[in-house]
C-alpha cells in the first residue's frame, strides 16, 4: 500500500509503451459523506464557483502572455499592388494566387466555412523548411523555445519565429491580409500567431471552446516533417511500391496521434461531468479532423461553442507535430447592429474554457488511442 499526498491531486497516466502487456487496473473514488450520512454538510456552490473563476483568470493571463491579439490598423484598401503579389508569390504556391482559384476558395469558404490548401508554401521554401525542421525533429534543442502549459489544458513548445524562414512574417504582412480578404471574404481586425512543436510522448491540447459570440477566423499551417516519410515496407508478398503508394502511416491512421479536431458544441451542456458519456456511433460531432501532415494550410471560421484540440502525440510517432497556428478577429457584418463598435471591441479570449467542459472532454478523450 502506497499513500501519496503531494498537496494537490493533479495526475496523469503515462502512455503504455508495450504491446505485450496491458495495464489492467481497477480504479475509482471514495466520496465524502452524502446527504443523510453523519458528517454531511450541504454544498456551497457560490464559494466553489468563485474559486474556479479565479483559477480561470490566472490561466487566461498566462495564455495572453504567450500570445496576445495585436490590433490591425483600419483599412478599406484590399486591391493587390504588384509589390503585394511579388511578396506573396515568394511564399505562397502560385496556384493560390490565381484569380480563378481565389474565387473558388471564396465560394468554398462561404459555403463550408472550411478551406484546406495542400502544398501551400512554394516548393523552394517548403524544401528548405523541411530540411531544417527534420534536423530539429531528430535532435530538438531548447534554444528559442518555451513550454506552454498548464498541463491540464495543454503542453507544447512554442515560439514566435520559426526559423530559417519566418512564416509569421508572411502572415503579418499587409499583402496577406488582402489575400485573406479575397480568399475568405472576411475582413480581419486583429491577429495572433504561434509556432508550435508538439513533442512525441509528451504534448497535446485539451478541447477548448470558442466562447465569444463573434465567429473567429483560424488557420493552421501544418509542417510535420516526418509525415513525408513513407511507411517502411515490411509485409511479405506485397511489393514495396504498393506499400509506398498507399501512403498510410501512423500519422494518417491515428496511431501517432497529433491530429487536430474541431467538434460541434455539446448538446448536453448541463450533463453531469462525473458521468462518462458514451460516444454515439456516427454522431461524434467532428466538424473537421486534420492529420499532422506537411505544408497544408487549413482555414476555419469558428463559431461560438465549437471545440478544438490537438491529440496527444504518441511516443511511437516518427517525430513531433509542428505547425503555425493563427487566430484573427473579424469585422462584423455591415448589416450588424453595432457596425461601429466592431472594431473597437477587444477580441474576447477564445481559449477561456468552462472548467466542467474541460473535465468532461478529458474524461471522454483521454486514454483513447484512436
Amino acid at each position, binding site marked *: *500500500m*502506497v499513500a*501519496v*499526498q*503531494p*498537496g*494537490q*491531486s*493533479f*495526475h*496523469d*497516466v*503515462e*502512455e*503504455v*509503451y*508495450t*504491446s505485450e*502487456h*496491458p*495495464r*489492467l*487496473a*481497477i*480504479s*475509482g*473514488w*471514495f*466520496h*465524502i*459523506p*452524502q446527504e443523510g*450520512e*453523519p*458528517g454531511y*454538510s*450541504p*454544498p*456551497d*456552490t457560490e*464559494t*466553489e464557483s468563485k*474559486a474556479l473563476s479565479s*483559477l480561470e483568470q*490566472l490561466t487566461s493571463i498566462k495564455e495572453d502572455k504567450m500570445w496576445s491579439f495585436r490590433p490591425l490598423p483600419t483599412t478599406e484598401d484590399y486591391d493587390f499592388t504588384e509589390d503585394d503579389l511579388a511578396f506573396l508569390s515568394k511564399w505562397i504556391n502560385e496556384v493560390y494566387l490565381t484569380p480563378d482559384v481565389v474565387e473558388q476558395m471564396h465560394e468554398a469558404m462561404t459555403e463550408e466555412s472550411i478551406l484546406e490548401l495542400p502544398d501551400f508554401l512554394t516548393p523552394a521554401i517548403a524544401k528548405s523548411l523541411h530540411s531544417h525542421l527534420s534536423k530539429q525533429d531528430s535532435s530538438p534543442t531548447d534554444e528559442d523555445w518555451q*513550454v506552454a*502549459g*498548464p*498541463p*491540464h489544458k495543454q*503542453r507544447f513548445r512554442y515560439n514566435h519565429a520559426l526559423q530559417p524562414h519566418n512564416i509569421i512574417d508572411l502572415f503579418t504582412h499587409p499583402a496577406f491580409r488582402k489575400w485573406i480578404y479575397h480568399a475568405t471574404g472576411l475582413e480581419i481586425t486583429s491577429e495572433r500567431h504561434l509556432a508550435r512543436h508538439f513533442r512525441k510522448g509528451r504534448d497535446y491540447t485539451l478541447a477548448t471552446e470558442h466562447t465569444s459570440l463573434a465567429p473567429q477566423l483560424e488557420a493552421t499551417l501544418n509542417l510535420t516533417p516526418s509525415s513525408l516519410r513513407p511507411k517502411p515496407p515490411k509485409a511479405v508478398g506485397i511489393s514495396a511500391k504498393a506499400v509506398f503508394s498507399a501512403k498510410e502511416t501512423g500519422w494518417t491512421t491515428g496511431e501517432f496521434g497529433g491530429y487536430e479536431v474541431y467538434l460541434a458544441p455539446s448538446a448536453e451542456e448541463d450533463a453531469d*461531468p*462525473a458521468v462518462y458519456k458514451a460516444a454515439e456511433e456516427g454522431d461524434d460531432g467532428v466538424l473537421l479532423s486534420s492529420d499532422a501532415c506537411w505544408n497544408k494550410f487549413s482555414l476555419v471560421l469558428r463559431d461560438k461553442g465549437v471545440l478544438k484540440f490537438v491529440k*496527444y502525440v504518441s*511516443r*511511437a510517432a516518427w517525430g513531433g507535430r509542428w505547425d503555425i497556428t493563427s487566430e484573427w478577429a473579424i469585422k462584423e457584418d455591415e448589416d450588424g447592429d453595432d457596425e461601429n463598435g466592431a472594431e473597437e471591441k477587444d477580441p474576447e479570449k477564445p481559449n477561456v474554457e468552462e472548467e466542467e467542459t474541460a*473535465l468532461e472532454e*478529458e474524461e471522454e478523450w*483521454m486514454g483513447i*488511442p484512436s
Partner: protein
Amino acid sequence: MKGLSGIKTDMSINSYEKGGHLLTHDDVIGTRCVSFILYLVKGDVEGGWKDSWGGGLRLYKAVEGVPENEPCLTIPPQWNQMSMFGIRPLPFLYVNGR
C-alpha cells in the same frame, strides 16, 4: 473533514493497451474525496512490470492551484499494488463546513 461515505463509492475496471494514456487532471468532480487504483498488471513475468513499459501514475505539483508542466513523481504499476491519493482541493464547501 472527517469520514467517507458508506453509501457512495464508484469504480471501474480499465485496460490500457499500447498507446493508451490519460492526460493531466485533478479528479475534482462532485463529491469525490479519495482516488484509488488497484493494479492487476502481469505479475508472473520476471521482475514484474518494467518501468520502460510506461503506464506510470504521475503526480504534478501545483502552484496557486495550477499544475507545473512536468510531473514531480512517477509511480510505475505493480501487480496487486494499491495506490491512493486524496483529492485536492476538496469541494470547497465541505472544507468550510468542518
